[in-house]
């Protein structure tokens, strides 16, 4: 049967997502937030989620809706601070001890996710050595560099935003949309992309930025 990963709606793309899922959400600085899928996950209602997202509370991402809706148990991110002067919903929950937070340096965050998708269970990195974020972590000096042992992050669901998908799930991103998308797709059991447009014709091999091998479902959501 000819491969076709297109699904009819963002809701349909959430089928099978369960309570307790580890969910990757791509996006950085306004580029690549999968806000249609995030809202579909909110409507789907899965609870006790662990969100793996660069920023717990970026103003241009709808991640905060999942948090405000009580669906999130824990956030793994490099940023947990809102720009607004007061407390974001996330920060209030954190202050009240009602949500867990793991703060990870952004590059280690990206590399741990890549490791999850690349079958590397753990790696040593000099980043964070000697800081509070390395507390409790194993350390080792390799070739004179002090390093911290970091473990892969794998998950159940990845939500990505891209520009175009073909029926094979091959993706092309616009500019800086790409950010965490490829790594997250590889690390998740179910990878879903919302795109501006889908097409029957295959994307030219040299234009594909993420192979459809890593993508399970795509949904066209317009610009």
């Amino acid at each position: 049967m000819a491969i076709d990963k297109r699904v009819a709606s963002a809701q349909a793309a959430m089928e099978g997502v369960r309570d307790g899922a580890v969910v990757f959400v791509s996006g950085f600085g306004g580029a690549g937030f999968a806000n249609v899928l995030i809202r579909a996950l909110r409507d789907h209602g899965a609870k006790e989620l662990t969100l793996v997202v660069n920023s717990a509370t970026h103003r241009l991402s709808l991640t905060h809706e999942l948090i405000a809706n009580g669906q999130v148990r824990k956030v793994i991110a490099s940023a947990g601070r809102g720009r607004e002067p007061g407390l974001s919903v996330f920060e209030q929950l954190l202050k009240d001890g009602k949500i867990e937070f793991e703060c990870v340096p952004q590059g280690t965050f990206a590399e741990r996710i890549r490791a999850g998708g690349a079958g590397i269970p753990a790696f040593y990195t000099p980043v964070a050595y000697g800081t509070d974020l390395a507390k409790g972590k194993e350390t080792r000096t390799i070739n004179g560099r002090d390093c911290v042992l970091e473990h892969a992050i794998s998950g159940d669901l990845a939500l990505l935003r891209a520009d175009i998908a073909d029926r094979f799930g091959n993706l092309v991103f616009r500019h800086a949309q790409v950010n965490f998308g490829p790594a997250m797709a590889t690390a998740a059991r179910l990878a879903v992309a919302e795109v501006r447009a889908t097409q029957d014709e295959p994307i030219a091999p040299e234009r594909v930025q993420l192979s459809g091998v890593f993508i399970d479902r795509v949904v066209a959501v317009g610009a």
Partner: protein
Amino acid sequence: MPGLNRNEMAWRAAQDIADGTVVNLGIGIPVLASDHLPAGRDVFFQSENGVIGVGPAAALDEADSDLVDAGSRTVTLRSGATIVDSTASFAMIRGGHIDVTVLGAFEVASNGDFANWDSRIPDKGPLVGGAMDLAVGARAVWAIMEHNTRAGAPRLLERCALPLTAVRCVRRVFTDIAVVDITAAGFVVRELLADVSVDQLRARTGAPFSLAPDFKPLLVPPLPA
């Protein structure tokens, strides 16, 4: 006694960016340095969200929310630019392919330790972003910060009080009154504003320092704040 303003500090840092290098500028004052490069220096500005070759900020009518830098500013691309994913961007950073990173800081210690991520703002959530990766990965780490806190406390210290971003990595600090190198022997002041005396500097600095053999006045053209 007014020191340099933000643009003037950024200007001074920009003078030290060598031709042909790859540079990452942190959020805040550092990113202003890209506006003040001396003519004829061809530099690639890398932004940790994957943009290699950040150009000037986008004009309002050209702003594209898919083309942003690590500070969420809508930017343009310079000639020869490309964009990679976050994994590749931080591989570039961690792997030593950034010649210089210029970062904002709260505190810098005379052994090169510095603190710039957790100012212990009550209640606000933590935010580390890419600072630790840049501090460890870039071949040279420079900091830009006011010489003193608003309350007048020194930011150049024997040991940082705030949570560290990285250990033993800062090589040079640009403050509103001085340019200070960090060497095996501790702080070495290279430049000082003409209307600040060495004694005044000592009073405003939290660790011993020496003067560089070629110690000279810190000269910056007046720029709008």
